[in-house]
């Protein structure tokens, strides 16, 4: 009566850019990998610009995704347009892939709610700051898809630290027992602020959190955009076709500080970090593409130039957007503003407050 479980691990592209088994079907034509590379570069350029804006006091506290671009891009690129993304706060790469604009992202991190009113993926959830609290939302979204008998699924990205929250266990369990169309992707960047994953849990893998919920769970190399994309695509397709939920742990590394408010040197040495630069997700794809004859120095320069121009333009646009009217503090509280709030809005409109855009450096 012994019951057995196992957690597998997959990788396609090794850190040196070599293929481990062979390319998966979606990349039979290796060219399909180019857009993934471009999207990872875009995320990285965006991150760098956001940090720069923060440094000069023109953006709020910001969480860079440096080094984890393959998780975001691999997962989002596996989605269909009608699927729903529920990101945490470090998935800019996924949001950008989905059609959230750099301006919207900057607006959000710059302290303006309009940044979450995505003009593109209207059903995607906004950034979620309270760790893990979006995970049950994914279960609700998936239930909605299932009840409507739609071929859609929810994709929820969470961190390694998030796996310690009860919300995750509750959500996984329900997704499991109701066989819901949802895929949970853990961005295991090995740190939750100052807490390394070894002090977050005694579990040998984070994927095994899914065993508790009876859902298929596996690990992938989270620095391998091909592996992430393959695993998520498979899980999403199973989800859309009635096969239920799954959990994918993508193992990567947080190369930057936790956020711009953090100083990682307080709790980890450069020596801990530097080996991980050898495994980061961009180099291996560039090496692979280059060796496959699909990518040149010129392509690289061109891409960087274009992307930088796009992000710079977005930053300029962001900085030019005036602060919302004070009335908006009230206008979206309820569909129809109750009497009590009408009075309060009146009061607020009458106040003289210091002008407040763009926001200053935060603690």
């Amino acid at each position, binding site marked *: 009566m012994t019951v057995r479980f196992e957690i597998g691990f997959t990788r396609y592209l090794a850190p040196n850019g070599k293929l481990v088994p062979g390319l998966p079907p979606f990349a039979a034509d290796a060219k399909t990998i180019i857009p993934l590379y471009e999207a990872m570069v875009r995320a990285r350029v965006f991150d760098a610009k956001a940090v720069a804006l923060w440094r000069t006091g023109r953006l709020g506290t910001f969480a860079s995704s440096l080094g984890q671009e393959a998780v975001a891009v691999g997962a989002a690129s596996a989605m269909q347009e009608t699927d*729903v993304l529920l990101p945490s706060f470090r998935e800019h790469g996924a949001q950008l892939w989905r059609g959230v604009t750099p301006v919207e992202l900057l607006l959000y991190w710059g302290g303006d*709610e*309009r940044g*979450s*009113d*995505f003009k593109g993926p*209207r*059903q995607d*959830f*906004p950034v979620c700051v*309270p760790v893990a*609290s979006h*995970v*049950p*939302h*994914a*279960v*609700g*979204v*998936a*239930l*909605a*898809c299932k*009840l409507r008998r739609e071929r859609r699924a*929810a994709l929820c990205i969470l961190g390694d630290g998030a796996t310690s929250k*009860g*919300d995750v266990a*509750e*959500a996984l*369990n*329900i997704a499991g*027992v109701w066989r819901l169309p949802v895929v949970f992707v853990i961005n295991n960047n090995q740190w939750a602020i100052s807490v390394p994953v070894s002090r977050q849990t005694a579990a040998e893998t984070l994927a095994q959190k899914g065993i508790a919920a009876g859902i298929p769970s596996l690990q992938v190399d989270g620095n391998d955009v091909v592996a992430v994309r393959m695993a998520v695509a498979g899980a999403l397709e199973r989800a859309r076709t009635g096969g239920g939920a799954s959990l994918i742990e993508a193992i990567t590394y947080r190369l930057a500080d936790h956020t711009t408010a953090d100083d990682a040197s307080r709790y980890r040495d450069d020596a801990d970090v530097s080996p991980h630069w050898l495994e980061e997700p961009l180099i291996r794809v560039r090496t692979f593409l280059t060796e496959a004859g699909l990518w040149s120095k010129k392509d690289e320069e061109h891409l960087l130039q274009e992307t930088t121009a796009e992000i710079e333009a977005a930053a300029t646009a962001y900085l030019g957007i005036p602060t919302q009217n004070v009335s*908006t503090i009230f206008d*979206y*509280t*309820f*569909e129809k503003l*109750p*009497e*009590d*709030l009408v009075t309060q809005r009146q009061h607020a409109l009458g106040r003289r407050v210091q002008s407040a855009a763009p926001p200053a450096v935060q603690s």
Partner: protein
Amino acid sequence: MAELKMVQSINLALARAMEEDARVLVLGEDVGVDGGVFRATEGLLGRFGADRVLDTPLAEAAIAGLSVGLAAQGFRPVAEIQFTGFIYPTIDQLANHASRLRTRTRGRLTCPMVLRSPAGGGIRAVEHHSESPEAMLAQIPGLRVVIPSSPLKAYGLLLAAIRDPDPVVFLEPTRLYRAFMEETPDDGAALPLDSCFIQREGSHVTLVAWGAMLRDALGAADLLAQEGTEAEVIDVATLKPLDEATILESVAKTGRCVIAHEAPLTAGFGAEIAARLAGRGLTSLLAPVERVTGYDTVMPLPRLEAAYLPGQDEIAAAARRTMSYK
């Protein structure tokens, strides 16, 4: 048209809402096969099927959280938290998500969900089954808090709550579930979510209550009437957003006010009403505002419950104090 108990009128409203709107779902612990531990959801599973009436695993935080997801997708989940003593794990979702999804996304995503929960004391229940945390919930911006005081109110307010495009917490006083019957036509008529109800008119003193305490307020009004004091009784069934005007107008007429609730005194919702009177209502006041409430202690276990819960005698006594003031 039939005389119904409150638990039946709630059941009727749920069925009606599900009938008229396919987006309405009922979910929670034991709401399906069992029909709810108080039978409020009885028969719904048979009538609407397992796609619309969902027995959930035992996980309150996730019940609230997945309701947010459902609502954002256009469903209208009506989730039950089996007792209000177990509602605390939902507060994170209510405060951080349900109540702010609309404003966070500038209206792109909304959260038309209802969280129903049997609340309050007076049925000598086991520990943690007699809580009245309405004020905690009423502090959350963007959340409506509704507490019915009768079968008819429960029917109309629950319909309104389900139809409302924003999140509503709907607290059902357990001791009213089977306390009395009321003619409750199944006419689909919702009651307003932004108005107090004047339950009884009077010009000498205003008694303000909600939920189960409303009956005590009405009882007190009867006692007072025998002494020639005409009490006006107001049911603040929709605590949040608060219809301040009705209360202020009444007190403008009577000059005296007694507010009653089961929850502890300090930071109870009675404080908000008294504060409005101390503010815009001050000139009306001819006597101190009295609050007749639970004490600032844990609700005792059943043997001493009656010594904790305020009742009509305390309300009447407080009203008399306001009447004889100065």
